[in-house]
């Protein structure tokens, strides 16, 4: 479903952030993306969502080569994804309901149908009673859940979450993880970046680790919360 082949990414004037990266993610997978701050996790997610283009190599999304798509086709590719941004990117001039309905409007869904779906999404993240609230009045964890509601409201088949638990304390983070697992359970592909995959995981997961621009993979087996990554790493490179 998502294929990277020898992908290199360099921003104008920067070094190579990602070097010659290849991997394959199938539909329905739950993948953690780890690496220290500045390693290139967000960059990799942006390449998947086609908000950045690779410098070289090919990115295939559902067998479409992103570099060869016409600019007018890009918006329609992006609608396949539910995006949860590292900085939320909520719109603070409108209430929760209006924030969540935006992707539906973009997809041309309006009226009663849209309202029904917005409430279903808000319900899934436990914010149904806050639909009229302004995002600024919500706690950090609630804002993050609102961002998730917006990402899932148009029922995307792939969720891309950029450090969704980054600034949250443990109980909030566990809530959020539970939500992601629930989506994954019903077949949604989830790719989530985090700086501590181990603290998050409650089950066996694939972990892609970025270091110095290269990608290494291992399986995260058991929820040994305190274990150092090295003890469970199985490099496949």
């Amino acid at each position, binding site marked *: 479903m998502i294929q990277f082949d020898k992908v290199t990414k360099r921003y104008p004037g920067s070094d190579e952030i990602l070097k010659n990266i290849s991997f394959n993610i199938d539909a329905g997978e739950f993948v953690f993306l780890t690496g220290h701050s500045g390693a290139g996790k967000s960059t990799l997610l942006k390449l998947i969502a086609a908000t950045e283009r690779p410098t070289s190599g090919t990115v295939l999304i559902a067998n479409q080569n992103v570099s060869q798509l016409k600019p007018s086709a890009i*918006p*329609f590719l992006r609608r396949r994804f539910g*995006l949860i*941004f590292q900085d939320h*990117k909520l719109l603070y001039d409108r209430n929760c309901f209006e924030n969540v309905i*935006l992707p539906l*409007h*973009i997809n041309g869904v309006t*009226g009663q149908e849209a309202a029904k779906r917005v409430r279903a999404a808000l319900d899934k993240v436990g914010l149904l009673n806050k639909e009229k609230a302004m995002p600024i009045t919500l706690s950090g964890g609630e804002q993050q859940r609102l961002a998730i509601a917006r990402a899932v409201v148009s029922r995307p088949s792939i969720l891309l979450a950029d450090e969704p638990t980054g600034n949250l304390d443990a109980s909030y983070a566990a809530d959020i993880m539970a939500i992601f697992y629930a989506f994954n359970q019903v077949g949604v592909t989830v790719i989530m970046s985090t700086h501590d995959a181990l603290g998050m995981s409650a089950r066996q997961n694939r972990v892609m680790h970025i270091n110095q621009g290269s990608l290494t993979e291992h399986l995260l087996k058991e929820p040994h919360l305190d274990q150092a990554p090295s003890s469970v790493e199985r490099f496949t490179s």
Partner: protein
Amino acid sequence: MNNWLNQHIQTLKLVLSRMHNNMLSTFMICLVIGVAMCLPSLFYLAVDNLSKLTDHMQKDTEISLFLKVDANTDEIKEVERQLAKNQGIANFHLVTKEEAWQQLQTKSRSNQEISDAVSQLGKNPLPDAFFIQAKSSDPDSLIRLKDTLQNLPSVELALLNTEWVKRLSSLLSLGKKLISMIAGLLAIVLLVIIGNTVRMQILTQKDEIEVSNLIGATRSFIRMPFLYAGALYGLFGGLMAVLMLIGIIQAFNLSISQIAHLYSNDFSVTLFDTQLFLAVIISAISIGWIGSYIAVSRAIASYKIN
């Protein structure tokens, strides 16, 4: 189809509620548009009505033929015969110097100064005169007729009353050209003003544009609310211009009709020039739309939205 319509309604609602939240600045921009549209329209109305008036006056053209003061009855008879023979003349009548003198005295009786002046004259200074209605209202043939009459014996002066009207109407056609130039310049100014207003909105709406772009909005979706905003500014501004025009016309209507009365014409100023009003509103909407289209296209390009 239904969704498409809903989407537009949704956008319109959003834009209207934003305008409602920024009532004052919305009012200001509409006022600017209104005044800018009002000015050339007023000029237009003035020129248009004046040229209608002059057209009207050119129709009942009259040539005044003043005879020499010492012309005797035979000479008058001779002129009268010449006039009767002339093919270009529809009808004419004679006002003798005695009749004219009497009329002057009657008319001046109400005004003390004039009547004093008249009585100081003592003897009648007025000549006999013919007032002649030409068949044609074509300016060239009128001038030819006037020249012919001027050359008749014992004629002191032939006066074509419409000469000043003609001069005025050529001035007015110059005025019309001037109006279209002013209107063109104001249109450019409005494009800049509306474009700038929309550009400011785009700045405050930057997050929305960015997020929409990231989650798969097309360019036309991103443009839509701003285009609506521009068009609505145009609409409200145009309506404001129409209201101002109606107010101003009404205020001046009285004096204008008095002027018209002076010329004893059945001339009246059109209060509701529907075509003009429609033109004002439609051009305001178009200018609003185009101005915001330019602004939002430039913004999209500068945000490197792909």
